[in-house]
């Protein structure tokens, strides 16, 4: 059963329609990567789901509860971290977390446990007595996330949660997100750091121009990029020893490749999934003089799906998103 069911959401700003007939359902225990270009409607969608903004039309149900009719009940089950969040600088970490536990109806005798659990999850136990103003940027981000999960919500919405975090903190955040999902929590994560989303996401949702372009399990979405099922494609990841100006050009000359994306010393190449083509691609790389250090079949990549559908041509996007929540109008 879906934890969220959104039907025909429409949200208007005076000069643009931010959401245009968006419909989808989110399964329990899943992690959905919400991606799209700036101004696509990601934040508006999250804010509507969090009942912070009210859509002009459409309906959202969380756990069967109509969010417009019962916003307070919905907030018991929901956590949300905004992309631009604030903290009470004069309060200690403990006070911040206690406050958020209390405003989410956690009884007084349960608040201490809830606070300690959230602090421990976000590695804040040692900083519990420190004022928020004294925390580093990464520690502040962790405190903000801890505040949004202190009441153990069934659904957690994270808008750019990794912004401002150092690599170690990002890795910990990825682990935490995966751990929360294992514990039964459903998450929707919006981020520009696409490569990280694929570490933990089970589903991908692409939104562009206020319309849902694609919403699928990550594995299924990958196959859609390659085209029709009869010409099943796979994504091969190639690593080379050092940056090479000709990397993309050499790969582009490989005729069976349908799409090539190069990121520094690694590249993703979409080719037909048969063994001969894979062997031929490796041979092509070696013969081109590339110092290949790695050659693996990649699993579905959010980044590739995004570039293929969200930033690709409108026609391509439409034709490959046939069963997205609602066909674009």
């Amino acid at each position, binding site marked *: 059963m879906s934890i969220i069911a959104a039907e025909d959401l429409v949200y208007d700003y005076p000069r*643009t329609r931010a959401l245009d007939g968006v419909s989808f359902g989110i399964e329990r225990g899943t992690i959905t990567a919400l991606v799209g270009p700036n101004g696509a409607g990601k934040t508006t969608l999250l804010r509507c789901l*969090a*009942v912070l903004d009210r859509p002009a039309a459409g309906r959202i149900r969380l756990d069967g509860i109509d969010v417009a009719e019962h916003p307070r009940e919905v907030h018991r089950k929901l956590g949300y971290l905004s992309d631009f*969040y604030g903290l009470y600088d*004069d*309060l200690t970490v403990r006070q911040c977390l206690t406050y958020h536990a209390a405003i989410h109806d956690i009884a007084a005798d349960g608040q201490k446990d809830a606070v300690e659990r959230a602090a421990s999850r976000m590695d804040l136990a040692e900083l519990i007595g420190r004022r928020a103003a004294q925390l580093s940027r990464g520690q502040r981000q962790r405190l903000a996330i801890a505040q949004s999960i202190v009441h153990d919500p069934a659904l957690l919405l994270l808008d750019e949660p990794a912004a401002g975090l150092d690599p170690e903190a990002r890795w910990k955040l990825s682990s935490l997100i995966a751990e929360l999902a294992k514990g039964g929590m459903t998450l929707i994560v919006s981020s520009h750091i696409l490569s990280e989303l694929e570490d933990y996401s089970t589903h991908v949702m692409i939104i562009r121009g206020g319309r849902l372009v694609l919403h699928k399990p990550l594995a299924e979405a990958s196959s859609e990029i390659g085209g029709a099922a009869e010409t099943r494609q796979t994504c091969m990841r190639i690593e080379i020893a050092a940056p090479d100006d000709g990397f993309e050009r050499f790969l582009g000359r490989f005729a069976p490749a349908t799409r090539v994306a190069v990121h520094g010393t690694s590249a993703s190449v979409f080719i037909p999934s048969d063994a001969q083509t894979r062997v031929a691609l490796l041979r092509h790389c070696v013969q081109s003089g590339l110092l290949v250090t790695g050659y693996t079949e990649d699993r579905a990549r959010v980044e590739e799906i995004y570039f293929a559908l969200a930033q690709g041509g409108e026609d391509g996007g439409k034709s490959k998103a046939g069963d997205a929540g609602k066909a674009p109008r």
Partner: protein
Amino acid sequence: MTLNPEFRRNLWIQFGETRVLIAGILTGMILLTALALDVAIASARNVVPSITVFVAHWTAIVILLFWAGRQAAGAVLREIHGRTWDAQRLSTMGPWRMAWGKLFGATSLAWTMASICLLAYVVASFWLRNPGGIFTAAAALVGYALFCQATGLLASLARLSGRPGERGGSTTVAQFFALIATGLLAAYAVWALQDQGSWFGFRIGEDALRLLTIWLFALWAMIGVYRRMRRELQMRGVPWAWLLFLITLALYAEGLAYGRSPPQLALILPATITMIVLWAVSVIEAKDPLALRQCGQAFRSGRWREAATLVPLWLVTYVFFAAVIGICFASALASDHRILRLPRTLEADSVLVLAAAFLFLTRDIFIVQCFTFGREGQYAGAYGALISFVLYFAVPVVFIAGEQTKLLGLFWPTGQGGWALCLLPAAAEAVLAVGLYLWRRRRYWRENAAVAPSA
């Protein structure tokens, strides 16, 4: 019983060591200095703490109106600017708990210091053996303070539109509104209620009526904060509380005018108060063209309840004002039959004044709405207030200086000069303003048609 979390959070912040130390030292120094002055100028035997009474009273006033007033006016705006408001809106707290947690939490330190001053004021007054009226004065001060603080918070909430990115505002502006409103209430209570001790014929007493009036307005300001907080927490509802407030105001005014001379006061007073409220709400209320359009769409498609939840308060007040004016006209027309059993029919001049006032106010409201559909819609209220100032004060001053008082009817509901001079200019200006509004609204939606970007 658990303490209101919002109130407790405010206590944590307000009662930080530094704040308490500075506030305590300053308040203590002011009171002790006053007491020292009393002792210094007293004779050897008798200390007369008259300076202490004066200083304690005025320090309490300054603390409650200016310091606590500012704290209350900024209680939500600080959260918006600090980006913590969304997290609070995501809580499971109800609107009343959130409202009183903010109103009394953000002002808790100020109230503590003011309480010390009020205590010093009461004790010193007893010492003076002049206790008469001190509790009334203290009760009035507390009422004024609650009104001022609640009005400041209400003004800040009223200016929040539903659109993210357009939310916010200035604490100073909200506090300015609150201080103006408190000043008007004080002026009204002191001067207008002089020698006025009865309501609908019931003898209450001048002081009691004054206190009841102050506390009535304070209570309604707090109800207003609650209702607006409901809206912020996405709990939409029909604006019945606003309608009830307008009815209460009209009844309150009617009760005061009852049995007084001239008799037409019984109709003119409620109409005047409604007029002031209508002008104020049309200027202060946040402007949201999209909500207005959605309201119209819901209304046209027969979704009455949805339309009622989206209807702006200025429109509710405008309809109410039209009804009040309608009753006045009915009274005038029913002179022979007394079908409405109103106290006395209006004279022709009074009818003209009311009709002209209605038309002028129609003009003012639609001028503000014109600006709402402009590029700088967020300043619509300020532009509307400025134009009202020019039309009602600046231009008439020029006419008066040039001894052209007959032309005042062009901008004031004077009731002089007969139907033609009194009503025609007002009607022309109202029609012009409505026409301009319709034209700008059409142009606005043509330019800003809300469509999905054609990618």
